[in-house]
């Protein structure tokens, strides 16, 4: 039986507490991994490993970090993701809430986009696959 959203959240929370050395109560659904929880690029390696172990899933690198889209001149213009690029991002990351990002889609802001809730939705999409 698939775990409930609460169960997924608890395990994601546990992985983030372990990987980032933050307190349980800091890991709220709205918290951003980079800005609020202080995740650095090296921490994503650790987060991915912990989620793979906790949920017995495989997480390919490009699913969480769509660098190929963000560095592709076809999808980026003047440092901003184009409408076409946004369509690609949504296709790649249907679980991510891109609403705020879409208002001013500067590539440099993409790194601070993902929230804890996005991670929960991502894991749920993997478990449902």
């Amino acid at each position, binding site marked *: 039986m698939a775990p409930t959203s609460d169960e997924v959240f608890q395990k994601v929370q546990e992985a983030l507490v372990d990987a980032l050395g933050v307190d349980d109560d800091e890991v709220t659904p709205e918290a951003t991994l980079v800005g609020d929880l202080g995740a650095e690029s*090296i921490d994503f*390696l650790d987060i991915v*490993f912990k989620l793979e*172990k906790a949920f017995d899933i495989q997480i390919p*690198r490009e699913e969480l970090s769509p660098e190929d889209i963000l560095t592709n001149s076809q999808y980026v213009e003047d440092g901003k993701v184009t409408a076409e690029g946004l369509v690609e991002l949504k296709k790649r990351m249907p679980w991510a809430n891109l609403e705020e990002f879409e208002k001013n889609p500067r590539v440099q802001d993409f790194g601070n986009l993902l929230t804890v809730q996005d991670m929960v939705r991502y894991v749920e999409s993997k478990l449902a696959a």
Partner: protein
Amino acid sequence: MRWLWLDRFTEFQSGSHATGVKNVALDEEALDGYCPAYTFLPPTLIIEGIAQLGGVLVSEHFDFEKRVVLAKVGKAVYHALGRPGDQLRYAVRIDSLQENGAFCSATSHCDGALQAEVDLMFAFLDPSRFGEESLFNPGDLLGMLRLMNFFEVAVDAEGRPLAISENL
């Protein structure tokens, strides 16, 4: 002083696990100032020794082509100190190999008793951010492995003795 915190490899299976020993000696400089009235190996150097064992394990899996660095200590629990005269027996196992890093879990035993438990995360230096310079001077890593009896015990995944890699 050599920055080697492992004395000898005792077992090495490519891509899987490795064991090694560290003999703690009273004449080691690192013990002098750490706690002079009650000497013991600084626990961080137990992590370093285990990381050297694990770093070679991960690096060898990629035929020494990746520049493997210790990126994070996920867990370090000590059950006892490593005192002069102790022989610490380290055992490292690869838990996961990823495209840009690896995870290992390790133990240290002394006289058959669990002395420490350590989880390590290694990262591979990305040439686009950190250049392409080797972490070792030519021949240094090979020399270190020879000093540590590596080639006497190292076998590949099928149990055949490891040849000396061209990348060393």
